[in-house]
């Protein structure tokens, strides 16, 4: 027991830390006599005497998190949780609609699986009615693609008569940064939305975890664009969970230097296919590792898959080099984010089914239009109800976790659909915040008009 860390020890450490913090916030240069490093901003100190922010404690074999008051990091009209394709579109749309808007994102960049998962391929941008091809991804999403098209090496397969472009991750992150800034969105990166702030049945904000610890961000309306539905799940909304393949994408460099003869040594009918699909970067191609069906909310699973997948990607590239005798090809990058395809699905006021999209049903409350993965089947209206939770108020869902039947997951989780449902959720949240009404009571004609004014395609 000599080495045991007793409660008294803890108190000592905390007191010291508290003292240190107090000193540091007041007179760092004087105390340490070193002005080379700039000082940190003032933080609420952990007070050992009042224990206003007590740490978790082990009690009777259980870990107890004592009740405590959270500092409010920010207060806003519309808060978007998650900065992926859906969250980005939601934040930009809400801010442009005049709402004070903030976005919290767990990583240091926008785009989620698009950029961090190196998915790159924006599928479902178009649909077809008869002989006419219709672009369904418009508004904020298409503006992003347009701006990418004006940059070098930023996007391919974009433009007239092209569907399903592939963008560059870095260019996409950059343009998303620019667009959120221009729209006046308060950007909170490195903040992980971990809990909901509830006021009875109404969501009033989210709790974020960051290097600063737990803090709250309050809002009139929250858009859950976490992909995993972290906020609505924490708020107690009815939902389901599905398993799907969890994979990892990687980029190969120097692909153009793999010669035909080297490829022939691999064998098979079309060995070039082993080198994946093109990206906007010269001589760089992206390769998908699909992975097994697994629970994307399970930390042990995620950790194991991350390790396994990275190992198999390395082996794959090594095997390719060994078999082909090529020594130019190299593994350029493995995606920073594991490719979780689907987890939680909201139970909304409308559950959109596959049948309703394949024989497209007109919805009076259409707020977005889905496309076809091959650009070949008719556009399908997405009703507002898929974004609105059955019981909860103060919250809208966007992206891959909206309310739908299982067979539709494959379409809804695509970047194209995420951009359009995100845009719709952001605009709706802005209207609800402006009118001080529940999101479910937003006037649909006004929402549709706002969406159309913002360039969205509703097919009406």
């Amino acid at each position: 027991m000599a080495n045991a860390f007793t409660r008294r020890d803890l108190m000592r450490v905390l007191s010291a830390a508290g003292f240190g913090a107090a000193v540091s916030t007041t007179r760092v240069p004087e105390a340490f006599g070193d002005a080379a490093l700039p000082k940190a901003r003032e933080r609420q100190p952990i007070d050992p005497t009042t224990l206003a922010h007590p740490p978790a404690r082990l009690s009777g074999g259980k870990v107890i998190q004592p009740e405590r008051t959270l500092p409010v990091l920010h207060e806003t009209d519309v808060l978007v949780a998650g900065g992926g394709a859906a969250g980005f579109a939601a934040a930009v749309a809400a801010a442009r609609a005049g709402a004070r808007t903030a976005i919290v994102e767990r990583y240091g960049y926008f785009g989620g699986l698009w950029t961090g998962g190196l998915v790159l391929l924006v599928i479902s941008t178009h649909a077809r009615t008869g002989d006419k091809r219709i672009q369904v991804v418009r508004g904020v999403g298409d503006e992003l693609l347009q701006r990418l098209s004006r940059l070098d090496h930023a996007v391919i397969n974009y433009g007239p008569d092209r569907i399903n472009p592939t963008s560059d991750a870095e260019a996409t992150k950059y343009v998303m940064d620019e667009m959120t800034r221009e729209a006046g969105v308060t950007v909170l990166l490195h903040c992980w939305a971990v809990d909901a702030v509830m006021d009875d049945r109404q969501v009033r904000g989210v709790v974020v975890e960051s290097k600063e610890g737990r803090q709250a961000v309050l809002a009139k309306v929250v858009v859950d664009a976490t992909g995993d539905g972290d906020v609505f799940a924490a708020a107690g909304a009815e939902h389901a969970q599905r398993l799907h393949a969890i994979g990892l994408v990687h980029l190969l460099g120097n692909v153009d230097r793999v010669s035909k003869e080297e490829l022939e040594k691999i064998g098979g009918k079309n060995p070039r296919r082993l080198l994946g699909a093109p990206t906007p970067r010269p001589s760089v191609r992206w390769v998908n590792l699909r992975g097994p069906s697994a629970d994307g909310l399970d930390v042990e699973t995620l950790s194991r898959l991350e390790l396994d997948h990275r190992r198999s990607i390395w082996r794959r590239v090594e095997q390719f080099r060994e078999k082909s005798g090529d020594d130019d090809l190299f593994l350029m990058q493995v995606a920073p984010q594991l490719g979780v395809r689907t987890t939680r699905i909201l139970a909304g006021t409308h559950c959109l089914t596959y049948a309703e999209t394949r024989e497209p049903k007109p919805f009076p409350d259409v707020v977005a239009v889905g496309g076809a993965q091959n650009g070949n089947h008719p556009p399908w209206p997405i009703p507002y109800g898929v974004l609105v939770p059955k019981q909860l108020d103060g919250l809208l869902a966007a992206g891959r976790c909206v309310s739908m039947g299982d067979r539709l997951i494959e379409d809804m989780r695509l970047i194209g659909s995420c951009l359009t449902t995100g845009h719709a959720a952001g605009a709706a949240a802005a209207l609800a915040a402006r009118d001080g009404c529940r999101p479910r009571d937003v006037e649909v004609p006004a929402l549709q008009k706002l969406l159309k004014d913002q360039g969205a395609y509703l097919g009406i």
Partner: protein
Amino acid sequence: MASEKANAKDGRAAASPRGRRLRSAVRWTVLVLAAVAAAGVLPWDGVLALVPAASPFVAVASALATRAVGVLSLVAAPVLLLALFKRRWFCRWACPVGVVSETLGRLRGRLQRRPNARTSTETERGGSPHPPRDNKADGQGAAGTEPRRASRSRGPRLARWPAVGQWILLVTLGGACVGYPMLVWLDPLGMFTSAVGAWLRPLGLVTVLATAPLAAVLAISVLAPGAWCGWLCPLGGMQDLLALPARWFRRRGGDEMKRAAVKENDLTTASPARDGGLAVGRRLFLGAGVGGAAALASEVAGRGAAPPVRPPGAVDERRFVGLCIRCGNCVRACPTGILKPDLGGGGLAAFMTPRAVFDVGYCREDCNACGRVCPSGAIAPLPLEEKRRRTIGIAEVEVEKCVLAGGQECAVCVSACPYQAVEVVEPEEAFPAYPYPRVIAGLCVGCGACEYECPTAPPRAIRVRPDAGTLGDRV
């Protein structure tokens, strides 16, 4: 000449002007009703089948070829029974092609007559183009006017024609006995339905092809008035043959024979059936024999050819090609528009038959429309439950083309399949293979949902091929 003899009798026996007007009104009314039914504008798509199904030619050929008598036979049954006693009653009172053909023939007659009246008879009869306004009691049924006149001027020539319609009928029924009623598509009601329906779809090559048979008939009617109805039409020929027993019976009494002669002359004068030639028994034997032999020959010749994907419930390929009257009903009834007339891909014999092409949709699990509207039994009407189990083909994956198998993200075919017949397979070896989709043979019915949704360029990485092994005749 027999026709002239009949003419003389006509004044007495044929209807009064009022009777003529009545018949004319009935014929035009039937034409309008048939056009409405064939247009498919009515809420119940079953009416599409009614017009072609009224043809006893189609019904008998269908019954022989499928060895089954369907509910639709009830439509043709009264037509057939009545034809036993009233020769060519259908042509005279109901046939929509007949009334148009005859009107056209008369128009041409008028145009020719106008500049200089050639014969006194013609002048006498001229200037009364439309039966309802025809006040001249010239002693002829309105329908009889043109063919008779034509036969008078051309009679000797036309009368020498063999009874083509009857031969078509016999050859077709002979073929039907061995499962291949090869010329059933010459049925006038089928042509009519096809031509009317063609205009309700987007216009194009198919419109032209679907209208062509009827257009040809109408062209014949202008160039050689009466030739189609009297000599060429298999439905007409069938009625001639059907009326034979009654005529033999009547021949035993003199008056009846005369009356029969009068009647038969109402529409076409020198009906070949009466003009000697081969005896009926020999004709039957020869025609049926030729038809049967041709059908068997076609079976031998057609062996091994890859048929296209046919609608669910289609009888086996060879019989399908024969039984299909090319009316276009199924093509129009298909809500997703995947049924298209074959424009040559399936061989000459399959020209204009429906084939399933999964470019704008797939064969829906909640639809059995094509079987409901097929008048000839080429596509059996299947209850939905049975239709969902009916295999029309099987999906195949071309791994070399597949997006997923190429290391990219896709599982469209898996989620598209209404029958959960596509699964993703993880390869045993990590290198060099990627996961790929696999079709589960027992579950796939060939509906084409996967092919329709597949993001690869056509021909798509997953596509339905007709499955000869499981295809076929389970009627």
